[in-house]
Every structure is written in structure tokens, then in C-alpha cells.
């Protein structure tokens, strides 16, 4: 006998279907919309589709925005510092992956 709690929750891959707006990101990251706009202006987040009425982001923007906010808060970085740190972190991750699959 399995109770409803035992049944597995059906999860979807968020990144595959999501198209996010500034408003979505603001709510999901619990920051002002203005802050998301600043991220775009500084190049921390990329807009994939410049709709006539609003900006659209891919689902991957969620992870990037949250990482940027953590860096901002924990390391007391300004926006330019966050943008630089993000670029360096990504470069580091790429190099580590490369190192890992080298025979």
C-alpha cells in the first residue's frame, strides 16, 4: 500500500521550458525588478529576445542571477566586480572540466 506521500512528485526540468521575464526573475530571486535591470545593463544577464514590450531570458538566467546575488551579498562586490567574478568563475569551471576529461 502506498499513501499519496509515497508517490513520487513529478518534476520538470525548469531550464528547458522556461522563458523568464524581469518580473519572474525578480520574484524568484526576491529582489527588486530594478536590480534585474541593472544586471542586464552590466552584462551579468543576457536578454535572449528583445520583445517590443518586455525582455525575455532563458531558464539558465535564474542560476546566474542567484549566483550574482550571492557574490554581491557575501563578498560585498559592486556590479562590475560581480560581472568580472562571473566571467572568471565560468572560465575556471571550463578549465576544470577540461582538466577532468583529459586522459
Amino acid at each position, binding site marked *: 500500500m502506498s499513501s499519496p*506521500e*509515497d*508517490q*513520487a*512528485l*513529478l*518534476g*520538470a*526540468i*525548469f*531550464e*528547458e521550458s522556461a522563458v523568464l521575464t524581469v518580473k519572474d526573475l*525578480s*520574484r*524568484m*530571486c*526576491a*529582489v*527588486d525588478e530594478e*536590480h534585474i535591470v541593472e544586471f542586464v545593463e552590466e552584462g551579468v544577464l543576457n536578454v535572449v529576445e528583445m520583445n517590443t514590450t518586455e525582455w525575455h531570458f532563458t*531558464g*539558465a538566467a*535564474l*542560476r546566474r542571477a*542567484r*549566483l550574482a546575488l*550571492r*557574490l554581491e*551579498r*557575501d*563578498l*560585498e562586490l559592486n556590479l562590475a566586480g560581480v560581472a568580472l*567574478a562571473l566571467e572568471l*568563475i565560468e572560465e575556471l569551471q571550463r578549465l576544470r*572540466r577540461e582538466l*577532468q*576529461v583529459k*586522459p
Partner: protein
Amino acid sequence: MEFKDYYKIMGVARDATEAQIKQAYRKLARKYHPDVSKEKDAEARFKEVGEAYEVLKSPEKRAAYDQLGQGHPGQDFRPPPDWGAGFEFAGAGPSDPSYSDFFESLFGSQGRAGPGNRRGAFRPGRGEDHHAKVLLDLDATLRGGARQLTLRVPEIDADGRLVSKERVLNVQVPKGILAGQHIRLSGQGARASGEGAPGDLYIEVDFLPHPLYKVDGRDLYLELPVAPWEAALGATVKTPTPTGTVDLKIPAGSHAGGKLRLKGRGIPASPPGDFYVLLQIALPPANDDKAKGAYAAFAAALPFNPRASLGV
């Protein structure tokens, strides 16, 4: 409860200036930030440093903490009955609910901002979204399937204190999910304070190391040992892949580090990743007369200088 020496954690003297404390925090935060650090206990250290800074950066909390005296690390600690009298703590903490019992006993729920007080505006009425991170076995994405996930969830207890509770969820992992992507479970976030719908739960996925395969995005890598004659003459060898053992054709003249691609046999995302085989040349041991004889005959038959490119 264990006494925490916040000065020791920050590596500063007890009479350190605010500037020195800030400087020490920034240095340690950069060193142990979980998004940046490679230290294996980075996350725990980072939390400890964050907690220490939370106390030492605030003149009121620092003064109250100093009043406790030096204490001894590891010593069983109870706050004195008159603890905190005359100090006013403004809630200004970071959102991390995982401060130690020591911190909670001293500064409790007044010592930090509640989860609802964080910067930014929430859609009124709707519960907050929750975020968590889990490590899954690679099979979960290769085949999909249910997994028991244990999450730490911040909750407000009956006394209004922010505590971290364990929550076990049985989740159907979507086949083909990649490291860094999120499983979204609608309605599994925080309950709304009023009538509104509950928030969603976002679970960021990362993978535990696999005994055979290494992961790069959607691609998988396998190091495959082959015998020297298999590499030189070509051969068809058994190779494990996520979808079962296959017969892999090694082309004649292959060399160590050679890369063979099996298209579409990586992580079954959309589009699916590829499966890469990295060739390694394995040498048979020369541990008896027969093997030594074979190596000697090999050497006699082939005029081969492996160091020719070094000019020697």
C-alpha cells in the same frame, strides 16, 4: 552547546578595529565562498565566517558578545540569565538560516532579518519560492526515476525562531537533466501567509562522481584501456556505455589520448549529448620468460626511437 570564538574564526585580535574585521571577513569570504572555493569544507567554513562577521561587524552585538568573556572553545556553554539586557539588536542578518545554536541562543530571531523581510517585493499573497541543491547519481539522469531527496528547509518554529528542518521528498527525476539545471516542483515552496497559492521548489542538480564516466555538460567521457596491438592493428573491443555494452571499432594506428565519439550516447537531454571514448594504451607486464621474450623480439623487429622528437 559549544562556545564559538568568533575572533579566532576570523583570525583577528579581540581589540581589532572595524576596518580590520571587515578586511579579514572579505579575505576569508573570498577564500571560502562555496561558488568559488575548492577547499573541501568551504561551505561549512564560509557559514562560520559569515556568522562571526554578523556578530563582530555590529557594535551592539560585538559588545554583547565581548561581555561573555573569553570562554573556552568546546566548553559547554549556557548564556547567563541577564544575557542581552540593555542591548538592542536590529535585524539585519543575511538570509542564511543555518547559524549555529550558539548564535541562536545569543541573538535568536531578533538577531537576523526574517525570511519575509529580505530585500525585494514578493507578489502579494503567493508563498515564497524555495531553492535547494542536491547531488544525484548519474543514473538518475541517464534513466530517470524516483529518488529520495533530503533537503534542509528553513522554518519558523512556535517561538518565532528561524530553524532548519529536514524534509524528505520522493521526486521523479526527469531523464536528461544536466548539472546546474533545476527540477521545478510546483506548489512545494513556502505556504502563503494568506489565501494565496504556495510557492514553487527549485532543486539545483549536480552529480556524484561516477565510477566509469566523467561528465561535461551533456557529454560523457570514458577512459578505455586498449592493448598496444589493438591500437596499432585496429580491433573491435567491448565497451561499456550508459545504454549497455557495445562493440567498439578501434581504428588501426590509434594512439594514446585518441578520442572516439559515439554520437547521441551521452546524457539523454534534448538534444542528447555524445559519448566520448579516450584511448589509453595498457602495457602487458613482462613478468615471466615468455613475456620478456616477446618484448625482446618486438624490440629486435622494430627500429623505434620513442624519443626521436626530443633530438636524442
